[in-house]
């Protein structure tokens, strides 16, 4: 193993001693502004871009109506069992989401203890760490409560989004995520843009291949 490593590094070092006439070297200027976007309403930009990729947008007028909105979605999908992740900021707990759903007769799990039973859950409900307006993207950090499967495994994903988590785009998200990933505090992060999709059969767009086919965002003021 060490042998291959040494050999490869020696080969690379030898190769790089031969300069290439096609190496431009001059640093490229930073990119100028991208999409001309009116940033006075970043949440509005997110809503537009998120719905353009097939997401469903919900904006209950008050915080008190968030539970109703979630319940309506759960009923709409005929879900008897839902997964309510333990999100890091504790938004779902502060809304008492799991308890309220249970009171309405919905079976709720907080963790996926037996992943072989993942298919029992029609809906997963999570918070989100950031929402990237430019691309309509949701960004999730892996956390002790909300691991990897809780944002991919069910056919329907309901995301509770606090207004303050909307950022302009990838650049701002990378700034937020870098310290968490570089320090090793979390084992990864996922960007999710619309439902799971494929065009592998005759380029016919089909959603819900391996991940959720439906994704809802409920804005929490």
């Amino acid at each position, binding site marked *: *193993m060490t042998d*291959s490593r040494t050999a*490869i*590094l020696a*080969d*690379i*070092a030898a*190769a*790089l001693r031969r*300069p*290439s006439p*096609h*190496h*431009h070297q001059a640093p*490229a*200027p*930073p*990119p*100028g*502004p*991208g*999409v*001309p976007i009116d940033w006075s309403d970043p949440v509005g930009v997110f809503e537009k*871009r998120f719905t353009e990729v097939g997401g469903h947008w919900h904006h209950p007028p008050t915080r008190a109506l968030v539970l109703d909105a979630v319940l309506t979605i759960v009923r709409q999908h005929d879900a008897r069992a839902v997964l309510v992740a333990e999100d890091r900021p504790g938004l779902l707990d502060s809304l008492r989401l799991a308890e309220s759903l249970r009171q309405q007769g919905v079976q709720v799990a907080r963790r996926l203890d037996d992943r072989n039973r993942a298919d029992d859950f029609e809906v997963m409900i999570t918070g989100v760490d950031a929402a990237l307006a430019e*691309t*309509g993207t949701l960004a999730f950090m892996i956390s002790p409560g909300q*691991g*990897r*499967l*809780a*944002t*991919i*495994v069910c056919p329907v994903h309901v995301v509770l989004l606090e207004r303050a988590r909307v950022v302009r*785009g*990838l650049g701002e998200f*990378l700034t937020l*995520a870098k310290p968490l*990933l*570089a320090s*090793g*505090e979390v*084992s*990864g*992060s996922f*960007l*999710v843009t619309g439902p*799971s*999709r*494929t*065009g*592998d*059969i*005759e*380029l*016919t767009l*089909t959603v*819900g*291949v*391996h*991940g959720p086919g439906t994704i809802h965002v409920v804005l929490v003021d």
Partner: protein
Amino acid sequence: MKPTSTRFLPVADAALDSAQLQRALTTATGRFTAGRLAAGAELANWQSLRNQGRAIREEAIHRLDELLLLLEQNVRAQGGEVFWARDGVEACTYITDLAHRRGVTLAVKSKSMTTEEIALNDALDRAGVTPIETDLGEYILQLAGDTPSHFLAPAVHWNRDQVAQLFVDKLGIPWTQDVGTLTRAARAALRRRFLEAGMGITGANFGVAETGTIVVVENEGNVRLTTSAPAIHVAVMGLEKVIPRFEDLEVLLTLLPRSATGQRMSSYVSLLNGRRRPGEPDGPTEFHLVLLDNGRSRILADPEGRESLYCIRCAACLAVCPVYRRVGGHAYGWVYQGPIGAVLTPQYLGPEAGAPLPFASSLCGACRDACPVKIDLPRLLLHQRERVVEDVVKRHSGFGALGARIAGWFLQTPARFAFAGALVRTFLHLTGTGRWLRNVPGPLRGWIASRDLPKPPARPLRDLVGK
């Protein structure tokens, strides 16, 4: 994957004769290109993003050893293993040994051209580990024993009726032409596999040296499951995929999806920093990064060919290439297709095995204009043509090179040039009267099969006005 690049012409001919494939290629490439153009046009800074993308890739390749060491250090610091593989055999052996040590008999895989390159599935099969492709297109091909023909849409050469019959035969579902139903059947069959598999194997779109982050881009969610459910995650990364900084992802993750499928962002981007942390409820307990050379350091050593290592595998050059659009991916005979494939294959496999590919281009330059990192593909094609001429023609037959030397001799002075012109003129005028030819023997057979050839004027311009 066993290379068949030397059979370019017969495979291309079969493709041209298949009305179904022609339709599929026209639709797919047309849609990819339209999507790319729209997604690029939306950004006022698209051209400067391309310059930035190129600068990032250029820097990465020219700091390759230093960045790989940094990547290794950061992956290890977060509990990951790093294995350096000189070739496919070393990479495959490492992975199969690991599977044996951990008692793994089933591995799920996401789409990875790098693992196709090293024929990892064959190695796993031989070692008693069943590999399951989980990308829908790759799954279709694996069930059928077929090979990919496009970077992004590997089964673009399959139509829904063929998939339907395959799923009737292999999955036991009733015949249906409904793509949604076919997709759900694959989902159901694969879902169990994700949960049963002891190992998940992915490629890597980028490896960030500065943070040790492996980035994988996809649309289906199969990468997400491959890297979440099994206890071991193995990422096989061509060592050229390293990038210096985490911030570089802003440029590269803007260029890649827009150039590939025309999406503003692919459905899923996984930024992975190794195995699960204490307290995390799921995720692999082991992470292994396989850094694969397999000829890359040799390509790096050629200053004229080095630029091909900048490629981020978006497939934009395939979609705009008028040759790919007509012959499809299989004619290229190996893992990489289109203009970039015509450049990479002879570099990886040697000029002899890849010989026809660099010549299978009209050098129109559409690929260079489409490339998000501005790789000068026509120049690379010309460079590979030179290598083929040097290494193959001269060594094996000498005929082509002799022809070139004869042509060069005739072209070297005006007298010889005029003499050659007179010979051709006389010969062509002997073939009959009339201004157009329909039958010419010899090297122009290929021309005359579909095209008339005008006779040159009786007297050349130099005779009329030459000074």
